[in-house]
């Protein structure tokens, strides 16, 4: 980490040293709750309280929203969020709970909302006091996002919303939702408009949230039913019928390919938590008996594990290279690979881990003999969430082929 500062601007260098000092004094320490694998798996109020308190402290110290304008609650700095992120990760802080707010809602609101709405919503988004969720997918609109049917009907200067959103992570804790709605049934793309809508305030009054159960048995994402929810027209983002274009801003940032770096802390794991990295895979192999030795001695498994190690390193180095213009052919070629590579790597790493674990791969989280407390089958199953959500891997490959390689649009 000592090399992170090598090419800092003067502002970045000063800010880096400020972050480092602040983190040295204000690291929240060992978590008091069992932390989930990611913000999307937050299941209990205790977990949320702990993480919200941390995000609030980091925001108050100026480590969240650094590059956003001061008037919307940001830090008004230039390319400093990356510095804060690097320092928070180096310091192994907890992650921020408001992941959809910071990564997707904030840049979209900044680019497309009315100024008064930005000033109203962004400060509490950055502080984590308002958790945000995203209402894009519907039962009939998965990868084909433009098929959304949830309808907003005009009523004076308000809109009345009816319909059904699914896979909405964090909806059970969320105050606000970014939502893609149909405002015209006669045009597929031009019939879409984009809103922010209050969820929590409207629970039982036009909005209901029902948990969905994942194949792992966990909850954490939801169905949200809109039954006549009314919202003010000021919460519409950009013009009527421009919903698809606004959604592209959201998706670009979701894929890590947007202009604004999302605030991202992390690195801290509670003792119970676990991540499906190649390093954990090697540790598993070293402690798994196999024949006279351990699975780490098996040449075929070694070959497969090294494949994962190499892919993981390549992904890390892609991210580094993406910031070296002299070594790039096309500006989006590396950023648009990110989500695809990370999700498939995670899936394959967990799959190889199940091979390494052998017969013990059958054991799940409640079994005291389960390797790594049964987190590997959990990680493998959850990995399909990653290869499906936010554009399946198939859709990601279309995007790469079309936008980067210039191949004809498949559909």
């Amino acid at each position: 980490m000592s090399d992170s500062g090598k090419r800092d601007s003067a502002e970045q260098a000063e800010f880096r040293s400020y972050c480092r000092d602040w983190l040295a004094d204000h690291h929240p320490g060992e978590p008091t709750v069992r932390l989930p694998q990611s913000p999307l798996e937050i299941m209990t109020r205790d977990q949320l309280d702990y993480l919200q308190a941390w995000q609030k402290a980091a925001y108050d110290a100026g480590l969240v929203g650094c590059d956003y304008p001061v008037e919307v609650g940001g830090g008004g700095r230039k390319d400093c969020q990356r510095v804060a992120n690097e320092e928070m990760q180096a310091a192994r802080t907890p992650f921020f709970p408001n992941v959809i707010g910071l990564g997707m809602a904030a840049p979209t609101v900044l680019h497309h909302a009315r100024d008064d709405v930005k000033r109203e919503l962004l400060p509490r988004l950055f502080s984590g006091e308002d958790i945000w969720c995203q209402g894009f997918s519907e039962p009939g609109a998965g990868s084909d996002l433009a098929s959304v049917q949830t309808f907003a009907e005009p009523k004076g200067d308000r809109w009345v919303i009816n319909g059904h959103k699914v896979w909405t992570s964090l909806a059970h804790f969320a105050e606000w939702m970014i939502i893609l709605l149909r405002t015209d049934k006669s045009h597929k793309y031009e019939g879409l408009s984009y809103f922010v809508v209050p969820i929590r305030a409207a629970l039982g009054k036009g909005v209901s949230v029902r948990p969905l159960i994942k194949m792992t048995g966990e909850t954490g994402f939801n169905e949200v039913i809109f039954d006549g929810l009314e919202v003010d027209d000021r919460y519409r983002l950009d013009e009527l019928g421009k919903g698809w274009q606004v959604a592209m801003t959201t998706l670009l940032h979701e894929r890590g390919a947007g202009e604004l770096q999302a605030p991202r802390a992390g690195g801290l794991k509670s003792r119970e938590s676990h991540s499906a990295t190649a390093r954990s895979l090697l540790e598993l192999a070293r402690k798994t008996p196999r024949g006279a030795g351990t699975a780490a001695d098996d040449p075929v498994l070694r070959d497969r594990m090294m494949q994962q190690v190499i892919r993981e390193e390549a992904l890390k180095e892609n991210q580094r290279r993406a910031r070296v213009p002299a070594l790039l052919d096309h500006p989006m070629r590396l950023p648009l690979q990110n989500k695809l590579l990370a999700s498939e790597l995670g899936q394959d790493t967990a799959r190889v881990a199940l091979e390494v674990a052998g017969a013990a791969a059958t054991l799940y989280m409640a079994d005291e003999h389960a390797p790594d407390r049964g987190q590997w089958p959990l990680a493998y199953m959850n990995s399909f969430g990653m290869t499906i959500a936010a554009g399946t891997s198939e859709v990601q490959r279309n995007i790469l082929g079309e936008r980067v390689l210039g191949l004809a649009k498949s559909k």
Partner: protein
Amino acid sequence: MSQPNNYGFGEEAALLKSSAAKFFAQHLPVDRLHARVAGSHDPYRCPEAPWPQELWQPMVDLGWTSLAVPESAGGLGMPCVAVAGLVEELGRAAFPCPLLGTLAASYILAECGDAGHTAQQEIVEGCAVALALTDKTGSWDIASSGVTYDGEVLSGGAHFIQDVRKATRLLVSASGAQGLQLFWVSVDADGVGVEPDAIVDLTRDQGRVTFNGVAASRLGDAGAAALDRAMPALWVLLAADMAGAAEWLLQTSVEYARSRQQFDHPLGFFQAVKHPLVDVMIHVDATRSLLYSAACAIDHEPGRARQLAHMAQASACDTAAFSAGRAVQTHGGIGFTWECYVHLYFKRQKHSEVLWGDATWHRARLADILLGDPAAAGGSAQGAEAAA
């Protein structure tokens, strides 16, 4: 001995397979299966073993549990290829029951000579059997056992025992003065302790058994050899289960890809969906062809049974993994939910993959046969001969 062109899969076998399909479809269609086994979704749930116990006696009455017991011992003595056909349907239904273990035990007992007779009787009478052949590391090498014997008294622990809470008898391997030997013991015998595992698969139960000075019947004097001879049949049956489950996953995914619309087309229009489903079909068919061939060899050409069974099981493991993963991916968001039945089969396949050797392990054993075991002296020369 040579193999019949049709694998020896005759009319009786075809009838058995189709009546099994009908039985499973009638008594435990997938919605009822889901209601039965997926009641609690809590990932920290206690180990459970729900199964349609009321269907066991009908299955016994149909003769299915004694299919693999030789006629000489009062069983039906059906060819292995016919038994495999039945087990394929069992896998296609993801049917939770101790049939696989009971059939597997039958093959082992058949290799034990007269010493297996009493145990065979009990199977014919309807006893369900679980195999206690695995040590605490989960080793797939049959030579390792965590149980020891002294005369006919067992001590120690066996692990990764399938459907142990559905069985009434245990077939146990134990080591002692005369090397590895096999024993037959009742689950409720004095000194037997069963501790259930918490597993991912909802259609099986699994557990550990401790033996605290347990009196058991010894099955002859050549347990290791008997077990070794029977293993190809065990692998073939498991491969059949996995092939059946894979076919369910294929058909269910195909059906979804035909009906679900995205981007103004059914999913299956897109080559990124279509081609992987074709590859699943190719995998399933390879496994099926190999497992019938291996089963036929068990019936007609025992000298080649082991290598063919390794091929079938290696193929089955790859097919299981691929069919499971692609089914979830093809189903998209809905495939990732508890309410979609795909996860039942996904979990069963992942479980089966590591049960009696994974794909890599079976290929390594096959290589030992075809290329010789480099660890053994003169291995290569022997291998070359075996392959010829």
